[in-house]
């Protein structure tokens, strides 16, 4: 790349389009057959809690009927207060999360202040729209975007469709093949004043429910030590929930289900 650039704006994507188009994803040609053999990520979810917003995703990626990866990452931190969770074709999804995080950092450095959270969600929707030709051939990118709005002092979350349609959710949402089951679980248990620890249990319960019904969703794999990725954004930034916390939340759910040890549970024995 030349040091002196023709481009003089503040968007990293536009910079690449003008100066280094070869670095941008360019999925052309007939991908319909190919897309079946490429890894796809499945269930991710997001919901608000008392201090902000939670995002979680299981770890399984599938290619057609086979397991492509058991410990893929589907939840990404895009900057100090925002996160993106991906479902759809894993390659383009992960690349989009990467470009978005550089985009947000780039804007902040060039302009001297970060984008508003709505600006970030809008930028992501433009990127999804540009991926539409590939989405038509089975390489869709359908993310969730969530973060802490420092102006409103609250968590916010958005879902998207393949055309770049951007829909803000006020409570919770989930996408991917197991999304329906995860959403159903959240619908039964979610309430607006959830604490951090309640929320971790909600995440694990919803993903476990999704893994139970949907073969392409991973859930908790104790034998291999693979746990969902759970993150939350609040005023103080992004907090990645540790595996041990997720494991104990999972055991709490198992105990509640088997009817043993439910005294310590705040979940009241509601089944996922």
């Amino acid at each position, binding site marked *: *790349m030349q040091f002196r650039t023709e481009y003089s704006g503040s968007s*990293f994507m536009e910079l690449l389009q003008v100066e280094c188009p070869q670095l941008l994803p360019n999925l052309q040609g007939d991908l319909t057959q190919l897309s079946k053999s490429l890894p796809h990520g499945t269930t991710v979810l997001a919901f608000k809690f008392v201090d902000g917003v939670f995002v979680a995703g299981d770890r399984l990626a599938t290619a057609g009927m086979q397991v492509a990866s058991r410990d893929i990452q589907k939840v990404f*931190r895009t900057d100090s207060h925002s996160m993106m969770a991906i479902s759809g074709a894993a390659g383009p999804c992960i690349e989009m999360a990467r470009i978005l995080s550089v985009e947000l950092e780039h804007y902040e*450095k*060039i302009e001297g202040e970060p984008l508003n959270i709505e600006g970030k969600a809008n930028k992501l929707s433009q990127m999804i729209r540009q991926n539409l030709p590939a989405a038509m051939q089975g390489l869709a990118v359908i993310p969730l975007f969530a973060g802490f709005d420092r102006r409103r002092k609250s968590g916010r979350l958005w879902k998207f469709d393949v055309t770049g349609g951007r829909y803000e959710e006020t409570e919770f949402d989930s996408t991917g093949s197991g999304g329906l089951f995860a959403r159903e679980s959240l619908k039964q248990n979610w309430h607006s004043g959830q604490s951090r620890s309640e929320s971790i249990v909600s995440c694990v319960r919803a993903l476990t429910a999704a893994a139970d019904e949907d073969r392409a969703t991973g859930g908790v794999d104790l034998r291999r030590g693979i746990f969902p990725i759970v993150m939350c954004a609040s005023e103080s930034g992004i907090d990645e929930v540790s595996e041990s916390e997720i494991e104990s939340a999972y055991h709490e759910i198992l105990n509640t289900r088997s009817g043993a040890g439910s005294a310590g549970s705040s979940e009241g024995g509601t089944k996922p």
Partner: protein
Amino acid sequence: MSMPYYVSPEQVQADKAEFARKGIARGKSIVALEFVGGALLMAENTTDLTKIGEIYDRVAFAGVGKFSEFDQMRKLGVRFADTTGYAYSREDVRARGLANAYSQAIGESFTREMKPLEIEVLLVEVGDDRYEGHNRNSIYRVKFDGFLSDHKGFCVIGGNVDDVQQVLEGGYQAGMPAGEAAGLARRALEAGSDGGSNLGVDDLEVCLLDRERSGRKFVRLSADQVQGILDGRAEVEPDPS
């Protein structure tokens, strides 16, 4: 039609250099120095137009002279660093490569353009102990004609370099705590300031490259935080990430 006068190349270079030096000398100075927890950059600046900026995870920029010109250079650095980091990996963005690119761009402009850039820039990189061969800090200075130099410990750019330099040479020690380093930088800037005036925290623009921070190590300090550091209180805000 009048005949163009012959002017020797030496004369052209000397005139351009003189012009650039005058432009830079009108401005205030910026100090960069290493301390135990990273590197500190301090400028006398009462305006909102910042002279110090973040380039990448471990690299900071400071410019003196004409604002529009050095800010343009800062943006070019950010574009170059972000593209390199995206194309390769974040660890591949190093100050030395950037300093070379700056040196070439500014030098080329000095030779080719009628009006040279009236700027000087500093690139400061803080070390990272996680990677072998990456653990040292480095400070690079690029002058208006593209002359590139590297500095150990501290460096000054701007108007009254000599007076500022003298204070730093007298007071600098390797491995100073943040409070002492900030105090020394302020004394140095005061020595270079008009009439040796006292500089309050509101007259200073202070940024740190915090070695302990993961990822982006650049921190811009508020007036309160600068006061806190000068008083030897809490070093820096905790890592938000």
